[in-house]
């Protein structure tokens, strides 16, 4: 994972805006570790996708005596502890049992979480009709019905519309027909707009002693409260006072609106981390467009020691300014693109005898999940909504099968078919495998990765819209590092991402090499380099102590990897 880039090479990489020319850079269209960490540490949410929900209902219960019900919908998000937190309300529609509400409710869509939603419909009493909707107390209104679903169920549907039958509170049986609620989700327009810009500078000041400055730009946007939050930075150009940087792609989510003021700072890179500010300027995206059109340069300014702003000789030019529409992750997913989930479980002896309560494979009769079960459940529960057939390949590695041979890729359910049905199917196959397989070793990833890559590669002949996600859960460090690297390098060109969870107390530093967040690309034994960073590695114990769950840490970068793969090949969502 890596919350910061270690190493000078990593530190010089561009962050934030995606560089379209480099499908092999570490950038993500959606999230970026360093930028996210900055947001979270400041108490602000990262820039995720906003979705608007439009609601309508049919056959609502008639509560009023002389007229029809006056319904209003309240949306709640169900938190981890089961409590309901209100997200928003529609307006009240008078006298209507088949209402279509105009007021949309906006909610943040986060791929890496299961987001359970509860919709409650109330009949608003006449005496409250002129009050603002927000002030209405729900206890004073008549309850008409409730519907629950998960946000990803709605957004993965073909037309992003879901109809749910209304039930009594907490789903306590259906005494009589309460009608149905239809929810339609739409990404806000902002999610799709993006601009691609190429920036260049002229006559920057020299801040280095024996050579020239190594300039890079950092772009920040103003947020409520007056502060500035960085949204991206360019790569570092060495030794150059007239640098040209690679094109930056900024999404409207990042810059807010075209009029929103952005601060562009130019720094001289120092490997010590103390970058020297060369100058800064404030321009909105609309200003940058004007600069491009008029082919003008904008001068940098710098604060002098007296507190004045001195105008510098250095100028910024915008060589390229292109507005474009980027298809978002939800565009792909709702048009029929699938995420296919695959699991591989470590059956090496280092886990400990499964009958022993100390073993990482111990199945607790009280129902408490062991680390393996936890990882499978949490990742599987999020991804299952994106997998249309819910059939998951499940393998074990490093164990001795009933036939007596040690296998590094055997079917978890022990049968000829490597697929199981649903997350429950994986759990059942895992439990039964613990009875039939004897733990052995060594820990090898190569065979499992190659098998997953083969499935991903073969799917390309029939279907260009599947993306595969392999979850490997292991307790130990691998012994086939070079073969694993070779397998990963080959797989980096395929629609595949690999999530690795390290359980238990082993020292996983070696595994972090595989997760190339430090900027070092994986190299195979034949001299080929990985084109994308397709690995995410998280040690479970590190995450359990923090605020976020294993799942969030692992899955955060998945939409970005997915988008990088399809965008770089110019594969668009299916037309509706």
């Amino acid at each position, binding site marked *: 994972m890596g919350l910061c880039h270690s190493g000078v090479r990593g530190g010089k990489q561009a962050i934030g805006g995606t560089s379209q*020319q*480099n*499908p*092999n850079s570490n950038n993500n269209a959606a999230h970026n570790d360093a930028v996210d960490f900055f947001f979270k540490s400041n108490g602000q949410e990262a820039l995720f996708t906003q979705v608007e929900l439009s609601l309508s209902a049919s056959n609502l219960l008639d509560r009023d005596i002389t007229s029809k019900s006056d319904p209003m919908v309240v949306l709640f998000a169900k938190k981890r502890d089961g409590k309901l937190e209100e997200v928003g309300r529609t307006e009240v529609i008078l006298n209507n049992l088949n209402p279509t509400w105009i007021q949309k409710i906006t909610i943040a869509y986060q791929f890496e979480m299961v987001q359970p939603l509860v919709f409650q419909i109330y009949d608003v009493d006449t005496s409250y009709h002129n009050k603002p909707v927000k002030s209405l107390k729900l206890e004073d209104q008549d309850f008409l019905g409730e519907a629950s679903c998960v946000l990803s169920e709605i957004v993965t549907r073909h037309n992003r519309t879901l109809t749910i039958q209304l039930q009594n509170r907490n789903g306590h049986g259906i005494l009589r027909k309460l009608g149905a609620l239809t929810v339609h989700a739409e990404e806000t327009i902002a999610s799709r707009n993006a601009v691609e810009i190429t920036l260049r500078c002229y006559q920057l000041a020299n801040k280095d002693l024996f050579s020239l400055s190594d300039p890079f730009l950092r772009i920040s946007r103003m947020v409520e409260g007056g502060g500035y939050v960085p949204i991206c930075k360019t*790569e570092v*150009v*060495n*030794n*150059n006072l007239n640098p*040209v940087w*690679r094109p930056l792609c900024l999404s409207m989510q990042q810059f807010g609106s075209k009029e929103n003021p952005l601060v562009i700072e130019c720094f001289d890179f120092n490997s010590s981390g103390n970058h020297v500010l060369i100058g800064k300027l404030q321009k909105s995206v609309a200003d940058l467009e004007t600069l491009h059109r008029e082919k003008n340069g904008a001068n940098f300014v710098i604060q002098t020691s007296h507190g004045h702003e001195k105008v510098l000789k250095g100028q910024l030019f915008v060589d390229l300014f292109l507005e474009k529409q980027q298809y978002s992750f939800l565009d792909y997913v709702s048009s029929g693109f699938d995420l296919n989930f695959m699991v591989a479980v470590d059956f090496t002896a280092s886990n400990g005898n499964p009958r022993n309560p100390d073993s990482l494979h111990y199945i607790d009769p009280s129902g408490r999940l062991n680390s393996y079960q936890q990882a499978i459940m949490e990742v599987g529960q999020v991804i299952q909504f994106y997998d249309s057939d819910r059939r998951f390949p499940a393998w074990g590695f490093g164990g001795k099968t009933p036939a007596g041979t040690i296998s590094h890729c055997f079917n978890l359910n022990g049968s000829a078919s490597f697929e199981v049905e649903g997350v429950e199917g994986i759990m059942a196959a895992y439990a039964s495998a613990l009875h039939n397989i004897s733990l052995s070793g060594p820990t090898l990833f190569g065979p499992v990765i190659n098998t997953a*890559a*083969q499935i991903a*590669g*073969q799917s*390309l*002949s*029939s*279907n*260009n819209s599947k993306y595969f996600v392999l979850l490997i859960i292991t307790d130990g460090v691998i012994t086939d590092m070079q073969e694993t690297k070779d397998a990963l390098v*080959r797989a980096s*060109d*395929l629609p595949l991402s690999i999530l690795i969870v390290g359980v238990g107390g082993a020292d996983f530093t070696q595994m972090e090499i595989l997760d190339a967040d430090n900027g070092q*690309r994986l*190299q195979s034994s*034949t*001299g*080929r*380099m*990985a*084109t*994308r960073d397709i690995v995410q590695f998280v040690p479970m114990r590190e995450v359990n102590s923090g605020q976020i769950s294993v799942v969030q840490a692992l899955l955060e970068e998945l939409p970005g990897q997915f988008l990088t793969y399809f965008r*770089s*090949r*110019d*594969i668009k969502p299916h037309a509706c």
Partner: protein
Amino acid sequence: MDKQHCHKASRTVEVTVLSAENLRLDRKSVKKNTYVVVRADPLNSGSTRADFEGGSSPSWNEKLTLDMPFQTRFISLEVKCRTGSGDRVIGTASLPVSDILGDYTPESHLHFLSYRLRDARGERNGIINVSARVKMQVESVGPPTTKNSVGYGCSSSWQQPTLGVPVGHRKNYYGGVVTGVPVWI
């Protein structure tokens, strides 16, 4: 095009030279004027135009179409620099044909590949990024059709094992089933 009526002994490959990273010449970062020569064999090669500004991490994004005879095992990628004293080789890499053919992907899959460059002394000198694709042969008998960008007309003697029905190239949708048989001799 007097090869129209002879047997086809090669396939067509499109190599798009994307970019390179961290190029050095004589222990200093390269400043400018780098270009790439892509060679399938001594007779079949192409080169990109020079990148004037890119410095040690230039980008070209240029597509080169080459004939690749069946027995070719490697395509060589050579990064050179135009200096005052002539053209110098910065580094070379070999693209094994097995990386674009013969693994479990369909033949016309667009591969994004990257390779470590090594200089004349065999030392590491940067990375080169390319994308490559083998062009699907369009079956045709007689004079070349305008759709076939290569312009050869006698693909009927093409000895490739059947891969199923190639359908709908334009939509990036691959029809048919790949048998995964390595197609070199």
